């Protein structure tokens, strides 16, 4: 079978030596690893389809992967599987400036899309923190969010079409360049966020937007943890929709500053990074209002970034938050809960209470404007007793999240990490419906088995 795979995609692109495949045994998620049987690096959609057919013949499972930056274990191999790594599908095939679309292969790095668009005065808004290395295919498969989600939405809002290889090896095209399309079910939407369990996404057609005329970045510091959350709720209530409202607590601030050295106020209890963009006059107006609201809610200091470079440095620093937290403890168990924004302040407080009660160390940051929080337990996977307490804390937080009408994952996906908790959120027949969709699309359970839920 290995020979046939080699004939299909080239022997160089079939990895089976232990030294070659061991580094594909994990993604960006803590404490999850599993050695695959082989790693395959196809160079075209046809090769992907060929691999799917060979996998069927051999009765082997396939786990899709881009750069392996996932945070829920979605691309962690299953035992004996073949990892289907799509990094060689790395071409931007078309930029259509008349229809404002871009066609890319799945393995294109997300940031490279915006680099390509710089000269066109266009941009692709979703900007997950891993954008400098994550692939667009991975983003679509996980419906990734980012720092601009509040105003611009998430990956799903920008996918107009895609080429998918189905579990039976058929290659299909879904969607088009039309702004409106109600012909049949919106099948492409099934694949967005499907975490590689329904098909292998090989190409994506993305919607683009014109770059806004102006933008302005502000920072605010607070001496209370809830100060930031209350300010965010007040800004939304004042009918302002900035593109970014990012929150960092003191622990996160200190770790990020330790790495990035951009002058963050490490003595603040909580911190907001705010950005507004649009026509210059509107930006001026909104920035002024946001500053006033932050001050009304007890901000110690509100600063405006001097220039675009300072603003970019702040955003880049924020993107390192999760990784930088490993400076405190090596195992960082990251949550991705999202709650209605009116519940933010209470949720931030609750996370801290749970951590205190269970004697755990927690840092908190997140896309507060979206109601999306990333409380991160700082622990050591070698300490089994503490890991059990972390598990307990997660249960409590998920339970409360469900009670206030939130979701256990806003942008990372379920994968393996959140799988045990998913049924808590789908309490009616909807959980069965999820499984029925999987059974219909992939009756043999070939694609990324054991992720999201067990059949």
């Amino acid at each position, binding site marked *: 079978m290995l020979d046939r795979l080699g004939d299909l995609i080239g022997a160089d692109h079939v990895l089976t030596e232990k030294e070659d495949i061991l*580094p594909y045994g994990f993604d960006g998620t803590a404490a999850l690893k599993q050695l695959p049987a082989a790693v395959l690096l196809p160079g075209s959609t046809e090769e992907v389809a060929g691999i799917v057919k060979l996998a069927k013949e051999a009765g082997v499972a396939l786990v899709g992967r881009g750069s392996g930056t996932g945070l829920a274990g979605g691309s962690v191999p299953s035992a004996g599987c073949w990892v289907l790594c799509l990094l060689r599908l790395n071409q931007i095939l078309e930029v259509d400036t008349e229809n404002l679309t871009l066609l890319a292969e799945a393995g294109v790095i997300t940031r490279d899309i915006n680099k390509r668009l710089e000269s066109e005065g266009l941009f692709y808004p979703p900007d997950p923190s891993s954008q400098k290395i994550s692939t667009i295919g991975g983003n679509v498969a996980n419906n990734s969010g980012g720092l601009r989600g509040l105003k611009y939405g998430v990956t799903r809002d920008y996918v107009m079409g895609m080429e998918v290889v189905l579990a039976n090896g058929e290659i299909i095209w879904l969607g088009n360049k039309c702004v409106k399309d109600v012909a049949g079910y919106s099948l492409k939407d099934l694949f967005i966020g499907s975490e590689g369990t329904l098909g292998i996404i090989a190409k994506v057609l993305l919607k683009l937007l014109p770059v806004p005329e102006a933008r302005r970045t502000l920072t605010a510091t607070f001496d209370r943890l809830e100060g930031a959350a209350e300010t965010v709720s007040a800004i939304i209530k004042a009918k302002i929709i900035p593109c970014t409202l990012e929150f960092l607590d003191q622990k996160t601030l200190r770790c990020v500053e*330790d790495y990035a050295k951009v002058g963050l106020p490490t003595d603040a209890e909580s911190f907001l990074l705010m950005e507004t963009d649009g026509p210059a006059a509107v930006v001026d107006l909104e920035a002024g209002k946001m500053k006033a609201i932050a001050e009304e809610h007890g901000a110690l200091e509100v600063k405006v970034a001097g220039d675009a470079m300072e603003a970019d440095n702040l955003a880049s620093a924020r993107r390192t938050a999760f990784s930088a937290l490993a400076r405190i403890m090596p195992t960082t168990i990251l949550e991705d809960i999202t709650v209605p924004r009116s519940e933010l302040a209470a949720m931030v407080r609750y996370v801290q209470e749970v951590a205190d009660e269970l004697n755990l160390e927690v840092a908190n940051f997140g896309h507060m404007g979206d109601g999306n929080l990333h409380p991160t337990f700082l622990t050591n996977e070698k300490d089994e007793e503490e890991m059990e307490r972390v598990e307990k804390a997660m249960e409590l937080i998920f339970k409360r999240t469900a009670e206030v009408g939130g979701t256990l994952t806003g942008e990372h996906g379920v994968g393996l990490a959140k799988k045990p908790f998913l049924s808590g959120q789908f309490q009616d027949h909807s959980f069965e419906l999820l499984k029925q969709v999987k059974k219909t699309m992939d009756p043999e359970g070939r694609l990324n088995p054991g992720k999201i839920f067990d059949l």
Partner: protein
Amino acid sequence: MSSRSPVPSPARRLDSMDYSVLQQCMHCGMCLPDCPTYQETGKERNSPRGRIALMRGIADGDLDLTSSFGDEMYYCLGCLACVTACPAGVDYPKLFEAARADIEDAQVLKGQRKFWRWLAVKTIFMRPRLLRMIGRGIRFYQWSGFDRLARRLKLTILLPKRLRALEPTTPRVRSKFSNQLIDAWERPQGEMRFKVGMLTGCVQDLAFSNVNRDTVDALLVNGCAVYTPPVQNCCGSLHAHNGELDLARSLARRQLDAFDLNQLDAIISNAGGCGSHLKHYGDLLENDPVYAERAKEWDRKCKDIHEWLVEIDFRAPTSSFPDKESITYHDSCHLCHGQKVFRQPRELLRKIPGLNLVDLPEASWCCGSAGIYNITQPEQAEKLQRRKMENIARTGCTNVATANPGCHLQLENGFKLTGENGSVYHPVSLLAEAYRNEK
């Protein structure tokens, strides 16, 4: 890369290392875009997090110390770009040196390398006088014209294949070495503000002794009395990066013996690669009962020349630079990633009147020199060299500044490779020249 041989010798350093150093990598992947070898192959094993996963596999007992692992650790440039990229603060140099040392102990790598390692790492670079003697021999070969004759008569065919390919890239050895250009003690003309020790390096001493002279001149202008021991040992960077930690320790001790730290405000290095290693004697000798404390003091006092000049608020030259209007700057990996000295060389160049500093795209991307990487991995080294030369061409500059002898040679050879007529300078040479032009 598939030959595997079970080995009796255990990976004693990786096994016994504080596990938290390995665990510090939380495999987020933020290092991947900055790793030159990963960007070349797109394969995880050729990335920092992939390599750390292999090391952890060995420490966990999931993987043997194989020749394939050995190949991988020598495919790594050791450029440390991943250290700059890593938000989690992984101590990659420690892991990298331990892995290479384990590989050498286990002797998993085969081929002629044993002889060459013995010759270079264990012999020549352990004996400064022998190194200078060899330097004189090479100089005679080059300046007598015998090198051109040998090439014409195809006598170089007598050399082993690898040396033959390298022969034309051998640095032009200077007629005078540092000890013939610099007195043991030199004092500034005006007020003496500081006393510093000066490290002359190995390759720098043979091929760029003028840079050492320029460094001392720049220090003198800025009120530093300079102590330069006439015979100096290798700092041990070559040894530490090539799995010979015991030899590296021995060289570090000799270095500490050569300078009286109580008398000196700083120890100055002008070679990025050396400096990056020199600043970590504290780690290297942490278990040495005699030297541990002095090594820590050494780390505190050891400064890169640019770093030191900016720290003491060096005087901007007043003369203008007539003939080298535009220049670009290439970061030595071990200066910018290893020592985090990124801003200072640029600041120095900007302060020279008449010099226009043009930003180099991918300035901190490795040029492929990487210690002896261009000898051990010529193919990958040349790819990186070409990439660097393309970026330099994009700036429109034919003058490049860089602050490490390995990079200096790699760029000079790069100009030869592309047929461009370009020149390479150490920033401090330009500063010294500007001071001289004032007179």
